[in-house]
């Protein structure tokens, strides 16, 4: 260590020691009869290269490595500062590539990879059922929850009838616990007299113990809470405790009213636990035994839900016993469930397509979010990987050109006695010096980028929260990418540079052209071509997604979406029932209508074009009512009296629904054009009669035909739609939560506070939810498309910029290498435009090659983005032409600067330079 800290001292030591040697040796030669002068010369010759000898002595010390590294870093920094443009370009391209990658990776990590914050998450297994056909099994008479279409066309769902849960819970040797839960969705929660909507989850008594969650305060829900008649208790999440109770320790023991039923808060869950579904974070957990009382909006099923084997609703997750594999558990449980399903089947049709039990790893939580976003994220991940590749190609190209420009410097260092390893180390240090700030800056970009991405994914979704913080996973990923890039692309040019034979490199002038250069330029061109090809893919992607978005925006909606305020009210959760509920909604409609600035107001049982869908069977006169299946179906909306007027949907025939269509009056229906042509082709639909759902054929009379409007989404074909009045009890179901639509004269959102006040005055326990304009609602259904168009455009611009930097660098370098040649050409009479064209032609050739390869790749990759585009083919010729055009123009602009510089070369100077 002395060597390191007393360097000047140690250096003096070394000098003195060598000096001592020279003097001894001189004396030695004098002793042999040489004169002083001669003796000294001979002694010095014996020592040889003093500096080299000193270097070897220094290398003998352990600290030499560190010392050299410090010196390399210092030298590298100075060298990089000398060419700020190169440094800035390299660091920036790396930072952008790495930043975008890390941001996407962070989000992907949260959604796909990160394990649940529970004890031994790898032991958890989610229980699903699946069938090979697209249709729901007939043994399922009703189903609430979710189901997914699998890639092979089959169907999968995590929802089971309660008897299946009891059976599997009580008879298995593979799980140490099997617990049940169900998302209740947003329920009306009121704390200290203040109502709001919050995500609630029903859980079995062993839910928390099975997951291994510990309470932050109080206790969690246990089996004794899940007995009918037990006192009603609730556990709140840590973040709900903070937002709603301000972290007040007195929260435990307080009462929260859920749908107007009081629950005592008995505990708070651990801070890191956010539920079993990433992306949704329930604020309140209640024993599952309370579900019938709280979930009144599922018709009559709740009376029998704990015994009905045909009602599929409960989700379950099990913890595998030690040593039991998923396959093993599957083999034991599947036959057990099959027997239950078989017993519950009533006829051959039901027996034909029975659901089979299917276990999945549960460690990352239930994965509806994963299913929803995995493909988009994969596409995004591919895009950022392209960007990183382009950025790396840039770095490689820049380092390559730089190493070549430094051939003379390296040759000088080698000839002065530096070892090859020593020079390689120096060049590598410079690469790492570039990679490090690139990585750090990238991390900053990632932090901002991932927040932005989550904001994009979450926009329009209520109760969406992802806990995405850059963690060590992401950090490791970034650092690996940064270092691998720096080392990989620092090493290749470095090895090439040190392989240079010293003599020709020293002699080399700008005029001579060693063969190695042709090779280098070949590699550099290859890099530029691949950059262009990758950029083309990104620009093409952007063009496709932007056109998709434009197509979606130009879809004819069929009603006037401008100046409409929408929001939800659910008085059923505040205790209103049946007739009182209808009256309440009708009164609210009436009150809103008289607010200054309101043109018209209505209520519907679902918002239009908001991915909501109500479907039911249609019973046509003459066709016998069939049981269960193969019934023709239709979509429907229950609407208020001023619906058509408010939404400005034109009537094509007959009348619209009005205030006289109430209980007691003949049941009236307005249908859309599709319904009329599907079910009454070639006939006048007016006056025709039909039945809906469980009602008898001929119950309803068509009183009007409305113009087609988009129903649940912009993308789907318009389904047959029946409009009925919610004031008539047509589906034998009371209205539940309603969406109100208010057409305003001016800005709709300006009325928000007025609306809240009116509702609060009428019923303080009914919260106003999801206040937004109709336009916002529609926009929310195309969030993914907007995200894609926005991100893709950003990516494309980024890729273009990086590729242009690459081409610019490559051409500028080529021009500087050819200064002599160009000088000679000009001396021989070449005109300036000719020189410009010469350079541009070269750039154009590179661009053309890149574009051609890119288009070929695009052609073969189109199927992978098929599901993301709308209204155009993925291999859209126009988009391809536009992308190729944009890219070529951008590249020509990038090449123009070096081209003009070439044309300004003074032939005299260029030739004299030799």
């Amino acid at each position: 260590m002395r060597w390191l800290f007393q360097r000047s001292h140690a250096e003096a030591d070394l000098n003195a020691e060598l000096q001592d040697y020279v003097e001894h040796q001189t004396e030695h030669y004098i002793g042999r009869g040489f004169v002083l002068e001669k003796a000294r010369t001979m002694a010095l010759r014996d020592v040889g290269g003093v500096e080299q000898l000193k270097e070897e002595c220094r290398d003998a010390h352990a600290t030499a490595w560190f010392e050299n590294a410090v010196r390399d870093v210092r030298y590298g920094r100075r060298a990089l500062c000398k060419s700020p443009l190169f440094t800035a370009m390299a660091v920036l391209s790396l930072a952008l590539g790495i930043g975008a990658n890390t941001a996407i990776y962070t989000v992907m990590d949260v959604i796909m990879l990160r394990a649940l914050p529970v004890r031994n998450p790898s032991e958890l297994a989610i229980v699903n059922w699946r069938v090979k056909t697209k249709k729901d099994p007939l043994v399922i008479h009703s189903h609430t929850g979710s189901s997914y279409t699998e890639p092979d066309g089959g169907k999968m769902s995590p929802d089971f009838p309660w008897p299946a849960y009891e059976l599997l819970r009580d008879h298995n040797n593979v799980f140490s616990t099997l617990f049940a839960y169900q998302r209740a969705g947003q329920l009306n929660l009121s704390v200290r007299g203040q109502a709001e909507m919050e995500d609630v989850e029903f859980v079995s008594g062993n839910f928390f113990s099975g997951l291994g969650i510990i309470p932050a305060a109080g206790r969690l829900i246990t089996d004794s809470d899940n007995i009918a008649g037990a006192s009603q208790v609730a556990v709140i999440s840590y973040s709900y405790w903070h937002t709603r109770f301000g972290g007040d320790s007195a929260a435990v023991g307080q009462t929260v009213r859920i749908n107007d039923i009081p629950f005592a808060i008995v505990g708070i869950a651990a801070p890191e636990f956010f539920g079993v579904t990433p992306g949704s974070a329930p604020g309140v957990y209640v024993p599952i035994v309370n579900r019938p009382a709280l979930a009144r909006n599922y018709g009559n099923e709740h009376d029998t839900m704990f015994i009905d084997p045909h009602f599929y609703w409960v989700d379950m997750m099990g913890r595998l016993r030690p040593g039991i594999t998923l396959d093993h558990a599957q083999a034991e449980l599947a036959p057990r469930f099959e027997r239950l399903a078989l017993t519950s089947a009533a006829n051959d049709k039901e027996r034909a397509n029975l659901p089979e039990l299917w276990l999945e790893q549960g460690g990352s939580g239930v994965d509806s979010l994963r299913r929803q976003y995995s493909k988009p994220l994969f596409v995004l991940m591919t895009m950022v990987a392209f960007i990183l590749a382009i950025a790396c190609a840039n770095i490689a190209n820049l380092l390559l050109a730089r190493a070549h420009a430094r051939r003379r410097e390296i040759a000088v260092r080698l000839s002065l006695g530096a070892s090859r390893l020593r020079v390689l180390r120096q060049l590598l240090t410079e690469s790492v010096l570039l990679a490090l700030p690139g990585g750090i800056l990238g991390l900053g970009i990632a932090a901002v980028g991932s927040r932005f991405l989550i904001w994009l994914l979450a926009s329009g979704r209520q109760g969406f929260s992802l806990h995405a913080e850059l963690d060590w996973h992401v950090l490791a990923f970034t650092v690996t990418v940064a270092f691998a890039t720096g080392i990989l692309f620092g090493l290749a040019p470095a090895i090439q540079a040190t392989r240079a034979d010293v003599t020709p490199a020293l002699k080399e002038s700008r005029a001579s052209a060693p063969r190695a250069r042709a090779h280098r330029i070949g590699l550099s061109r290859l890099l530029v071509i691949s950059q262009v090809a990758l950029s083309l893919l990104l620009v093409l992607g952007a063009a496709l997604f932007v056109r998709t978005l434009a197509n979606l925006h130009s879809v004819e909606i069929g009603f006037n979406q401008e100046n409409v305020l929408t929001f939800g009210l659910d008085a059923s959760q505040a205790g209103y029932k049946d007739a009182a509920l209808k009256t309440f909604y009708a009164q609210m409609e009436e009150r809103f209508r008289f607010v200054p600035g309101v043109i018209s107001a209505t209520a519907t049982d679902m918002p239009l074009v908001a991915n909501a869908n109500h479907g039911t069977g249609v019973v046509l006169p003459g066709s016998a009512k069939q049981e269960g299946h193969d019934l023709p179906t239709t979509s429907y909306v229950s609407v208020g009296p001023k619906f058509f007027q408010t939404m400005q949907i034109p009537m094509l025939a007959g009348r619209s629904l009005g205030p006289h269509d109430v209980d007691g009056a003949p049941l009236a229906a307005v249908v859309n054009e599709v319904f009329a042509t599907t079910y009454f082709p070639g006939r006048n639909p007016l006056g025709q009669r039909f039945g809906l759902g469980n009602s008898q054929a001929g119950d309803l009379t068509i009183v009007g035909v409305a113009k087609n409007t988009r129903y649940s989404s912009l993308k789907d074909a318009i389904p047959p739609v029946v409009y009925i009045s919610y004031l008539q009890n047509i589906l034998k179901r009371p209205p539940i939560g309603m969406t109100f639509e208010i057409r305003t004269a001016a800005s709709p959102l300006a009325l928000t506070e007025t609306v809240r006040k009116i509702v609060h005055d009428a019923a303080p326990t009914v919260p106003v939810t999801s206040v937004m304009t109709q336009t916002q609602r529609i926009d929310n259904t195309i969030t993914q498309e907007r995200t894609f168009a926005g991100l893709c455009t950003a990516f494309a611009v980024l890729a273009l910029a990086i590729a242009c930097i690459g081409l610019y660098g490559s051409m500028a370098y080529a021009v500087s290498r050819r200064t002599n040649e160009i000088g000679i050409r000009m001396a021989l009479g070449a005109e300036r435009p000719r020189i410009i064209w010469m350079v541009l032609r070269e750039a154009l050739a590179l661009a053309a090659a890149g574009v051609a390869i890119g288009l070929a790749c695009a052609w073969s990759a189109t199927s992978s983005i098929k599901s993301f585009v709308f209204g155009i083919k993925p291999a859209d010729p126009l988009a391809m032409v536009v992308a190729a055009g944009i890219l070529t123009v951008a590249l020509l602009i990038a090449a123009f600067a070096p081209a003009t510089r070439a044309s300004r070369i003074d032939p005299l100077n260029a030739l004299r330079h030799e």
Partner: protein
Amino acid sequence: MSRPTDLIQGTLDLLILRILALQPMHGWAIGERIQQMSKEVLRVGPGSLYPALHKLEQAGWIEAEWAVNEAGRRAKFYSITKEGRKRLQQETAGWKRLSGAISDIVLES
């Protein structure tokens, strides 16, 4: 001049340790002594000698001290350490084995 390639790899270390085991010495004198003791056969130039000395010092087998030499000038004297003597024993044993083995083959008549 003899370059280290003339010596079998590692033997220079052995020679230095052996010479320093007799008495502390400064760099030039070590080179002289090697030459003397080998009857002018082995000549070690400063280009090999000093890096080897610094390496041995770093390894802890020898240590250095500035002192006044026989001519009254300050010089850097190297002396062997305890670990150095241990090392010397090992190296000597190894050398005996190696040189014996080589002699057996080369001098076989």
